[in-house]
């Protein structure tokens, strides 16, 4: 196997590993740009993965599973909103609470319904998002350079992957080219000014959380019924936090968010790939080093290379209309 093929295989892996991060980081983008810290991304992702797996298993339809995932994720977003917007609670506390609720509730319900130790039963193939082979993928396979790239990286992904990459320009367009986006960004910087203009801060922030819930629902569904075929205890495994890191890394901008997520996905793929490989001069490197690499690199990049990450000014501050 030559180096180019290895590279292409790694790119394919990168794409698969980045998708949940992209959805989740975009979700975080909407809520944080509106001034609501969303540490509960992890919980939303987990809850939607569970809902998606349950419904897809029960109905045999992947789209209904996706819908259920989105529904639960939005519900979690609304609870977060009720605690932190309506009742002006601490956003971090509310988000962390939601993470705990999701981690506990999914296992308890899963155990009660399916008694498989909190897992859902395997979702049959028809009820999952299967890979889509784009036209000509087989024919292109043997074309040098572009062939493997097209057949292994661009083709052969499931529909959610393509949706994720569509969501990036769409998010950009919504945030920077629509009235809603302008107001949303304003409410994260200076909610007082938005209020003075006669726009409801509360309703705007709720809408941001609904959009975030919608996007986060995709990531959960991707984990449970596209990438794997069942819900497993704590299957989000910290991806929500990594997405949050990617969001900060990308300075709260949609297109850099995509690249940050791809970078994190690539590091993960690289770690998977380098396991047990011989390196020139050094010999076999312990797998732990490669598994730690993404985190080390994150620290280094965050510390030295991207400059000051400036969050939305009103982030984390509940809006009080009048003193």
């Amino acid at each position: 196997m030559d180096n180019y093929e290895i590279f292409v295989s790694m790119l394919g892996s990168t794409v698969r590993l980045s998708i949940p991060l992209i959805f989740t980081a975009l979700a975080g983008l909407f809520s944080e740009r509106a001034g609501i810290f969303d540490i509960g991304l992890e919980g939303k992702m987990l809850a939607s993965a569970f809902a998606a797996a349950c419904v897809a298993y029960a109905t045999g339809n992947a789209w209904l599973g996706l819908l259920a995932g989105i529904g639960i994720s939005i519900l979690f977003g609304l609870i977060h909103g009720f605690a932190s917007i309506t009742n002006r609670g601490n956003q971090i506390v509310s988000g962390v609470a939601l993470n705990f609720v999701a981690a506990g509730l999914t296992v308890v319900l899963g155990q009660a319904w399916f008694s498989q130790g909190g897992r859902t039963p395997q979702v049959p193939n028809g009820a999952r998002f299967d890979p889509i082979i784009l036209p000509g993928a087989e024919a292109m396979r043997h074309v040098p350079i572009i062939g493997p790239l097209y057949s292994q990286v661009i083709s052969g992904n499931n529909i959610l992957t393509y949706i994720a990459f569509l969501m990036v320009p769409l998010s950009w367009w919504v945030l920077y080219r629509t009235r809603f986006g302008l107001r949303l960004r304003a409410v994260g910087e200076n909610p007082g000014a938005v209020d003075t203009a006669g726009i409801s801060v509360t309703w705007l922030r709720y809408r941001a959380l609904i959009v975030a819930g919608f996007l986060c629902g995709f990531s959960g569904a991707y984990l449970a019924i596209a990438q794997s075929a069942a819900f497993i205890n704590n299957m989000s495994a910290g991806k929500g936090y990594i997405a949050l890191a990617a969001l900060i890394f990308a300075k709260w901008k949609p297109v850099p968010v995509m690249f940050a997520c791809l970078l994190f996905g690539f590091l993960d793929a690289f770690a998977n790939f380098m396991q047990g490989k011989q390196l020139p001069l050094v010999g076999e490197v312990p797998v732990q080093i490669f598994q730690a690499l993404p985190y080390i690199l994150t620290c280094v990049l965050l510390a030295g290379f991207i400059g000051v990450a400036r969050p939305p000014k009103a982030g984390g501050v509940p809006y009080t209309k009048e003193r």
Partner: protein
Amino acid sequence: MKKTLLSLMALAAMAGTALAADVKPAVVYGTGGKFDKSFNEAAYNGAEKFKKETGIDYRDFEPTSDTQGEQALRNFASRGYNPVVAVSFAWTSALEKVAGEFPDTKFYIIDSVVDLKNVHSIVYKEEEGSYLVGLLAGMKAKSGKVGFVGGMDIPLIRKFACGYAQGAKAANAKTEVFQNMIGTTGAAWNDPVRAGELTKNQIDQGAEVIYAAAGASGLGVLQTAADNKKFSIGVDSNQNYLHPGSVLTSMVKGVDLAVYNAFSDVKNDKFAAGTQALGIKEGGVSAALDDSNKSLITPEMLAAVEKAKADIIAGTVKVHDYMSDNACPM
């Protein structure tokens, strides 16, 4: 006279219940969870079999983190449960402590050795079972490339990998074996997404058969192999039925039998401390053949497995035990 007889009978009955009450079995599973369709589920099946046959109920506990095992073991022992079966290597140090505190309770540990007077340790010669499935994998893989995805990176799992590699190379000396481990913490038993990704990597490198020794994470390996129309090998329990036509075979460890025997030995007052190593000869490990994988195994493959079994029992084929020297010659 009649009265004495009656009271004698009552006494006998009481003695009977007192004897039966001595057996209050309890099981502490590993962190993979009771229904992992693999290692822990095998233990559960053994316990259920005992319950069905004797009508004696048992208690069990599913620790969700590595720190809960000790607490669970102590809890069962202090409430008079006997025997207490620890179903994971992860409870080794916990059991050393707890077994010392409760010298009258009988303990069993599976997959590890605790050298105390009231502990019976059961270990398996996984290298022998893995050798058999490795042989099948080596014969099945036309490309001469096979893969291994392990759960947590510990000597026990390396032992699986080493036996597997040896078997695959016995089938074809040029077989290339890819090896990956999912992680270094208990979470590695529950990460099917990473397991699937590692499997995909190996498939991209040309692997045709991938052996999963990874608890619940193994389900991700089996799924990915089925999605990519390749073969996989299950572990601990018979997993052939999960994806018929794609799961080539399963390396079955008789964990169910071990738990069942543990319960009934204490019931029959036949507890003996010490270590038991179960291999092919003792029926502790095997390669599963049933209706789900019948079509995948050719008569030549079957014959080769039978021959390997006989050779291992006779001692003409020696499968290397990784844990004996922490190194694999392959």
